[in-house]
């Protein structure tokens, strides 16, 4: 008998047919009777006082039903930092001043979008422009314009991580290397822009359909800013068209549509345009990184010092977590006996920077892995060997931070080394770059201050054996609905098609903190597994009574067959047992709950994924153009739940992370994003995708459901670094500034040629 019936089998997304046939109702598709359409007026200034807002002309326009400004709100400074109020600094509808181009200042509800848009032009805002600052290294200087009164030198958050005796260790080092790196910004580019339909009724209840990564967060955050009780608000998010970190904070569509709906007692729909999406929905954090590493002649790592200045933009957003995680993952996935990290998040008059797939780790991995190749080159050590020598391993403790329970990094290195060897001699101007990485399986952080378990699940087994599974996790395209169905089916002993999923609705689903930080498989997965195990226990009680086996025998259910573990041929139909069981329970269906909250698992995460990626690229020496050829990834995500899902996550991650590496950027002029559209903002498409291969390295993670760990965000971490190293291998020049554009490569080649001539 195979170990698993469902786990590790390729299963198509359970909501795939609904999506491809157009039945899936996204927020964009929600249209209610008497619904109005809202639009948001945004600041044209990067920094300005709001002296007055005159809405009278807009209100007088036929078809306009309401105009609201910050004065019509409670003026709550909100944020996910509900335990750390000083970090809640964003009002969404600015009252006194604006701090970035695109900051909302007013919102209109009208009978249609055209009228609402026309009304925006009639709102007169009197601004007093203030001097502004756009670069973190400028903003931190004495005398720079200040964004927020309480933030001296515009320093928003600092983070310090340290272990070992760093200064002493540097003295022991045979070789010390220092480098500066610059990591660019990136837009999430979700296919579905931020949108919401808010419907407030006079009975005092608010329902909000929205595109989000966490309906629970949005419900609570709305209650904070609207003055309603949490449970007078219902948030519905059946389908979310992409999130990538951009959709777990409260956004302007959700807030403005709610404020307007409460004023009018009518449904109000707001869908952000692609331009608004680029300008004002947060983005990946640009970072200036200083790295100093000390190693022994043989490549043994001794000490690392990292300092980072991040471009915060106008508000904290989730940037404080990105600042911590970039510092933590800067040491990954290696054993550094001593390490010191200082991070400074600096306010600037630019669109706020926040969470994005990888959450600070792709930046860290790019810098770290580029530097390791430079160190290996200097010391004449093989780049795989230097990584293997210093690789993290199972049961390693990151001092004061985390314990690594499972780690397949060495095996990943072996697999990638084999692939490189098999690839043989490369054509001219080709290079293979590698990068090793790790990531968390859900955060332990509770800045949100939830009193609930981090994840919960409820199962009801009905008389025909069909299972209702209620989960709070949010599928945003990553496939968590399928993952949860598979975990439930495996544990309960049924098939995936036996499960009817209930998700995306705070009125019906138990609390889960949402889809961020790669937490669903491990956390929601554990809760589902616990609920399924409890339901199974209830069913097996009745089976035991019926079968009256020897008391030493265990019963189990596999593929709808209730049987003796030791003698699988002896058993009963699952359907028959369930029917009897319900009869025996006074006609009550079998109901079970499960939950998960990490305990005693360090500061960061209960479990860590690991991997090594090799990127083969060619570089045209005439133009500097990079072409991706191959991308091979050995990934340790513990027990693979759904191989199809893993492949999908990997391909999506490569498209996003390679884009970050050499194409995507958000250039600005005086705080204004210059490419807020999909003509000028380039993303990788299928034609630019290299051949991708995933080599599963299976470990068993004791904390994960069936031994599983994350397989979503971590895959975004290595690619920019591996690509940089491929360019290094192909051309002999190392680019320390993202994105690695043809022009930068060409300039670097020229510099090198000049140096060589001298």
């Amino acid at each position: 008998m195979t170990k698993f019936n469902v786990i590790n089998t390729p299963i198509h997304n359970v909501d795939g047919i609904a999506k491809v046939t157009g039945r899936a109702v996204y927020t964009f598709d929600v249209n209610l009777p008497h619904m109005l359409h809202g639009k948001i007026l945004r600041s044209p200034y990067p920094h300005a006082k709001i002296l007055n807002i005159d809405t009278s002309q807009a209100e007088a326009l036929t078809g306009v039903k309401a105009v609201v400004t910050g004065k019509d709100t409670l003026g709550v400074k909100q944020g996910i930092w509900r335990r750390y109020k000083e970090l809640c600094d964003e009002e969404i509808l600015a009252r006194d001043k604006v701090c970035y181009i695109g900051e909302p200042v007013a919102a209109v509800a009208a009978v249609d979008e055209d009228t609402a848009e026309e009304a925006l032009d009639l709102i007169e805002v009197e601004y007093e422009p203030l001097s502004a600052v756009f670069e973190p290294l400028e903003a931190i200087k004495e005398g720079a314009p200040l964004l927020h009164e309480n933030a001296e030198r515009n320093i928003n958050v600092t983070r310090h991580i340290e272990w070992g005796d760093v200064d002493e260790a540097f003295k022991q080092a045979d070789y010390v290397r220092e480098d500066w790196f610059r990591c660019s910004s990136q837009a999430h580019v979700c296919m579905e822009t931020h949108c919401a339909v808010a419907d407030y009724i006079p009975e005092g209840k608010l329902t909000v359909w929205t595109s989000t990564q966490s309906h629970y967060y949005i419900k609570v955050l709305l209650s904070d800013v609207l003055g309603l009780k949490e449970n007078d608000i219902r948030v519905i998010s059946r389908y979310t068209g992409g999130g990538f970190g951009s959709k777990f904070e409260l956004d302007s569509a959700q807030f403005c549509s709610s404020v307007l709906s409460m004023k009018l007692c009518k449904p109000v729909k707001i869908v952000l345009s692609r331009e608004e999406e680029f300008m004002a929905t947060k983005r990946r954090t640009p970072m200036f990184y200083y790295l100093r590493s000390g190693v022994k002649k043989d490549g043994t790592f001794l000490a690392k010092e990292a300092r980072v200045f991040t471009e915060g933009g106008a508000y904290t957003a989730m940037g404080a977590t990105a600042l911590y995680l970039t510092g933590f993952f800067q040491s990954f996935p290696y054993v550094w006996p001593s390490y010191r990290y200082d991070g400074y998040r600096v306010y600037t008059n630019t669109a706020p920077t926040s969470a994005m797939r990888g959450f600070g780790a792709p930046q860290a991995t790019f810098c770290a892995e580029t530097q390791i190749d430079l160190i290996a080159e200097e010391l004449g050590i093989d780049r795989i060997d230097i990584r293997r020598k210093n690789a993290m391993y199972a049961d390693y403790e990151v001092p004061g931070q985390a314990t690594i329970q499972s780690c397949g990094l060495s095996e990943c290195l072996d697999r990638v080394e084999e692939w490189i060897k098999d690839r043989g001699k490369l054509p001219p101007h080709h290079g293979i770059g590698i990068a090793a990485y790790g990531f968390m399986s859900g955060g332990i952080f509770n800045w949100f201050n939830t009193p609930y378990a981090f994840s919960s699940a409820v199962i009801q087994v009905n008389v025909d054996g069909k299972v209702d599974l209620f989960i709070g996790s949010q599928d945003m395209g990553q496939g968590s609905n399928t993952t949860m169905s598979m975990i439930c089916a495996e544990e309960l002993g049924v098939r995936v098609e036996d499960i009817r999923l209930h998700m995306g609705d705070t009125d019906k689903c138990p609390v889960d903190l949402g889809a961020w930080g790669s937490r669903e498989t491990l956390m929601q997965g554990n809760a589902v597994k616990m609920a399924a195990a409890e339901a199974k226990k209830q069913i097996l009680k009745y089976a035991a009574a019926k079968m009256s086996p020897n008391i030493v025998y265990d019963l189990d259910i596999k593929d709808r067959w209730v049987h003796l573990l030791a003698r699988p041929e002896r058993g009963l139909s699952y359907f028959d047992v369930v029917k009897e069981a319900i009869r025996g329970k006074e006609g009550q269906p079998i109901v079970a709950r499960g939950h998960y909250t990490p305990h005693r698992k360090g500061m960061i995460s209960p479990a860590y994924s690991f991997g090594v990626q090799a990127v083969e690229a060619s570089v045209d020496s005439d133009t500097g153009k990079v072409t991706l050829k191959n991308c091979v990834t050995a990934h340790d995500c513990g027990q693979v739940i759904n191989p199809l899902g893993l492949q999908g996550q990997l391909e999506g991650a490569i498209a996003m992370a390679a884009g970050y590496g050499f194409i995507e950027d958000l250039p600005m002029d005086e705080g204004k994003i210059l490419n807020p559209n999909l003509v000028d903002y380039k993303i990788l498409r299928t034609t630019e995708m290299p051949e991708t291969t995933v080599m599963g390295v299976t470990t068993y993670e004791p904390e994960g459901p069936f031994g599983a760990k994350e397989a979503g965000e971590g895959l975004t971490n290595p690619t920019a670094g591996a690509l940089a190293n491929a360019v290094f291998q192909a051309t002999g020049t190392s680019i320390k500034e993202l994105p690695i554009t043809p022009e930068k490569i060409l300039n670097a080649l020229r510099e090198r040629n000049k140096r060589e001539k001298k």
Partner: protein
Amino acid sequence: MIRDFIYLKANTVEEALDLIDQHKEDYKVICGGQSLLILMRQGLVAPEHLIDIKSVEELNYIQFDEKEGLRIGATTTHRTVELSPLVLEKFPVLVHMEENLASIQTRNWGTIGGNLCHGDPAGDPGPVFMALNGAVKIASKQKTRTLTLDEFFIDYFETVLEEGEILLEVRLPPIPPRTAVVYEKFNIIKNDQGIISVAASITLNNDGLSCNDARIVIGAAAPAPIRAKETEKLLIGEKISKGLLEKAGEKASEEADPVADIHASEEYRRHLVGVLIKKMVEKAWEQAKAQVK
């Protein structure tokens, strides 16, 4: 968001010219809309009347005559050009150009006439038609006139088309003997607009060694596609050599007048002009030489 407009559809050239005449105070002609709709969505263009000539079937044709050459009607889609066996046989460079022009969806909707009239200096057909010594036929209610492509483009998104005029067809004379025409653009994303593009037509003398005529066109390097006339002069009468190609590249870089934008600096664009000129001239030269043998 696209502002409201009045949609008017023409089925014949006459209808189109009448509609334009009736609404000349505020109109825009649409013929596929692959470029126009983007501008309208961004609010950069907000016409009161949108006159759709895509259904004007009398302008949907590709015809070839040994003496006159190729005629492509303005409403012919990119995809039709791309898949035409006739074009493949007589003007293979056009098929190559179309295959790399935007996405299939865009090529299915976008038209030759619409593309040219949009006047984007980074457009693909313009430089190729110029290298092929093409001409355009233009009509208004009052008159019909024919101009060379060299005269057609004026500035960023501006052509010689006057109020009331529409483009009827493109005419490409037969390719002379011992001539090859090639085109390439540099971009990061396949099928994206070129950061720089170069079309080159090289005609060799009977000896198959020296250059009899050259037409070199650079796209995206100035407010409109430009003929690199000094570069052409430098090539005519010469035999190919590494040195000549180098000189041609350098000369063309000087002739180009690119500006910096978020996609490339001025310096990098000039460099790309040099790289592409060398590559295209050599390629056209070799293909022309192969015809002599």
